[in-house]
């Protein structure tokens, strides 16, 4: 521990001073395979090595937060965001790296900020406000305001153990914001508590920010982050993926989730294929069922989304080229064959549709190939999930040989800074 480096107040206030700076921080956890909490097991383990496993919860994390900033930390479960917050709060100590915090921190980690379940709400307010650095006189003054904000007037003399988790969070949050410290660390506060209280908390954040205080918010709610954070950081398995504007990071997070989703879908398909090759029976029987479905002349058997190189894919970036390929089987010879394809978004809105009948396409080559393919150039869809519907019919559009309204979904992620369903090319004039 070294004392503070003199933060020269002489430094111009124009370029705002740094509130938190984290440089190359590593945090390693050792997980004993069996928790050692008695001397006996420590003794046994002394002779039996290799019973530890260590992993890095944080790997070389560096970032800076300026004073008065609203900084978001986002990432999936296990990405290390809560560990990072605990290090900033001083609960954990980093194994390596330098952390520089300029100002007093009011942490709000998990449920409750060190409440004692046996004490009344009143006593817990006094205990926690003291922990957050208020003196007795200040607490006396702020007590009514703390209780009023938490809306727990009726329960304040009850023991905390009789509180619901939502009530505990309300009280804890109320104490944390009344502590009036320069830096507020918030971990998933919005997960608990009803929507009324959530919006109240968020309003309070904004007020905090207006007062020139620094707020660090850990969340996995993208819309909250977009709405309130100035800047944000995306973590993944303990590493910083990106630091940037909230919008950029939100997009990065969505994209990350989508590529994870892509991988999951691919894996599922792979598994299904392996299963099919191994057992064969289950899926074959299903096929037969579909084939024999009322003795249809033509049956749709599958759909695939392809990128511009013809590689199967389920997640696309807005503006990419994309192909939809639909496989079918013909059981009886039919004179005329027409195909119709529709794209809906996840909310069920009809986004786009085409058919070969209207476009007067010669479908003979499709017959030969056993599939029909539509190529799209630069898909203008914005971020959402979409699914396709497909129909095969003869010369009568209303009498389909086969029709599958909701076949398979794909996802689109948009990097553009605009809103709505589609990205219509535009220019400000």
């Amino acid at each position, binding site marked *: 521990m070294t004392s503070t480096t003199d933060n020269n107040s002489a430094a111009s206030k124009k370029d705002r001073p740094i509130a938190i700076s984290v440089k190359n921080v590593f945090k390693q956890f050792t997980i004993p395979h069996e928790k050692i909490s008695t001397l006996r097991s420590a003794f046994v383990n002394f002779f039996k090595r290799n019973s530890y496993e260590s992993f890095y919860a944080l790997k070389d994390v560096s970032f800076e937060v300026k004073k008065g900033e609203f900084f978001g930390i986002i990432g999936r479960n296990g990405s290390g965001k809560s560990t990072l917050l605990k290090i900033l709060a*001083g609960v954990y100590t980093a194994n390596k790296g*330098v952390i520089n915090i300029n100002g007093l921190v009011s942490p709000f980690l998990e449920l409750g900020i060190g409440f*004692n379940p046996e004490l009344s709400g009143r006593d817990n307010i006094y205990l926690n406000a003291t922990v957050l650095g208020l003196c007795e006189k200040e607490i006396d003054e702020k007590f009514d305001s703390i209780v009023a904000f938490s809306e727990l007037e009726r329960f304040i003399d009850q023991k905390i153990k009789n509180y619901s988790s939502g009530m505990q969070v309300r009280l804890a949050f109320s104490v944390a914001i009344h502590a009036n410290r320069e830096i507020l660390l918030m971990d998933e506060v919005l997960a608990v508590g009803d929507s009324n209280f959530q919006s109240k908390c968020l309003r309070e954040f904004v007020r905090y920010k207006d007062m020139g205080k620094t707020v660090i918010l850990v969340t996995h709610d993208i819309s909250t982050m977009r709405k309130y954070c100035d800047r944000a950081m995306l973590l993944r398995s303990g590493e910083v993926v990106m630091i940037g504007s909230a919008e950029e990071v939100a997009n990065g997070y969505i994209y990350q989730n989508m590529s994870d989703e892509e991988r999951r879908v691919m894996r599922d398909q792979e598994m299904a294929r392996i299963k099919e090759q191994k057992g064969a029976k289950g899926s074959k029987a299903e096929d037969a069922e579909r084939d024999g479905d009322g003795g249809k002349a033509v049956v749709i058997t599958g759909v695939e989304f392809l990128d511009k190189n013809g590689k199967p894919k389920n997640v696309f970036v807005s503006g990419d080229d994309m192909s939809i390929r639909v496989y079918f089987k013909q059981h009886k010879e039919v004179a005329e064959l027409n195909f119709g394809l529709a794209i809906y978004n996840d909310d069920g809105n009809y986004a786009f549709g085409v058919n070969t009948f209207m476009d007067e396409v010669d479908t003979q080559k499709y017959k030969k190939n056993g599939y029909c393919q539509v190529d799209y150039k630069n898909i203008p869809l914005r971020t959402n999930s979409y699914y396709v519907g497909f129909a095969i019919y003869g010369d009568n559009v209303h009498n389909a040989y086969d029709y599958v309204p909701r076949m398979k979904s794909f996802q689109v992620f948009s990097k553009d800074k605009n809103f709505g369903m589609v990205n219509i090319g535009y220019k400000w004039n």
Partner: protein
Amino acid sequence: MPSRFMTKSHENYRELVMRIAKTDFKLRYHGSVLGYVWVILKPLLMFTILNFVFSSIFNFRNSGTPYYPLELLTALLLFQFFSEATMTGLMSLVNKAQLVTKIYVPRWTIVLGSTMNALFVFGMNLIVLALFFVYYGRIPTLGGVAMFIVYALLLYILAVAFSFLTAPFYVRFRDLSTIWEVLLSVIMYASPVIYPLTSLPVRYWQIILLNPFAFIVNYSKQGLINNNYTTFWHFMAMVAGIVLAGVIAFLVFRKYEKTVAELI
């Protein structure tokens, strides 16, 4: 080297320690019918039993220790003070896990605050002790009282040092509380608590007084009752030993407290 720079991590340590101590005191007898009466009742009951056994059976009163009940009560209170302070100190971090894992509080304030409860209780019991001295018609000299206070403070420092040394390890090894419980009774019987030092052969005195607890108990009651003190150099050696133990304990604590939150 991991490091952490901060302007200030906390500004009112004193208030924090006092708040933790007060909270503990509040919780101590909560849910019991007699409540704080137990603070005084518990040592008195112990005293009554031990006094009956040792005054009537071993008859220390008539074999050179006329004020045996006063000696017994003084020693008992000191022992109870020490055992309670060390026990709560040892378990402080685990018992206050919510202050360790959910929020940052300088950890030493938790240990110190937890031990203070024993100090409060001891302070209250001193009133009873004073009444006993009056009842037995033995008014101690000013020097005796002053030395008693000094010894009580030294004992408290010793208990706090023990707590700092052991609290971070109790998080890792919960057997420590059981081990310490046993050791406490060893310490009690190895010190002149229920028996006067004079009832032992003189050759054992020096060995017994090497134990700082025995030293403190013996000379605080000697000072109060018989106006009898140790030599200056012996006293200084003990003070130096306790202060050194305190410094070492605190350094060890600072080293091992860092990982406490992950291990609880």
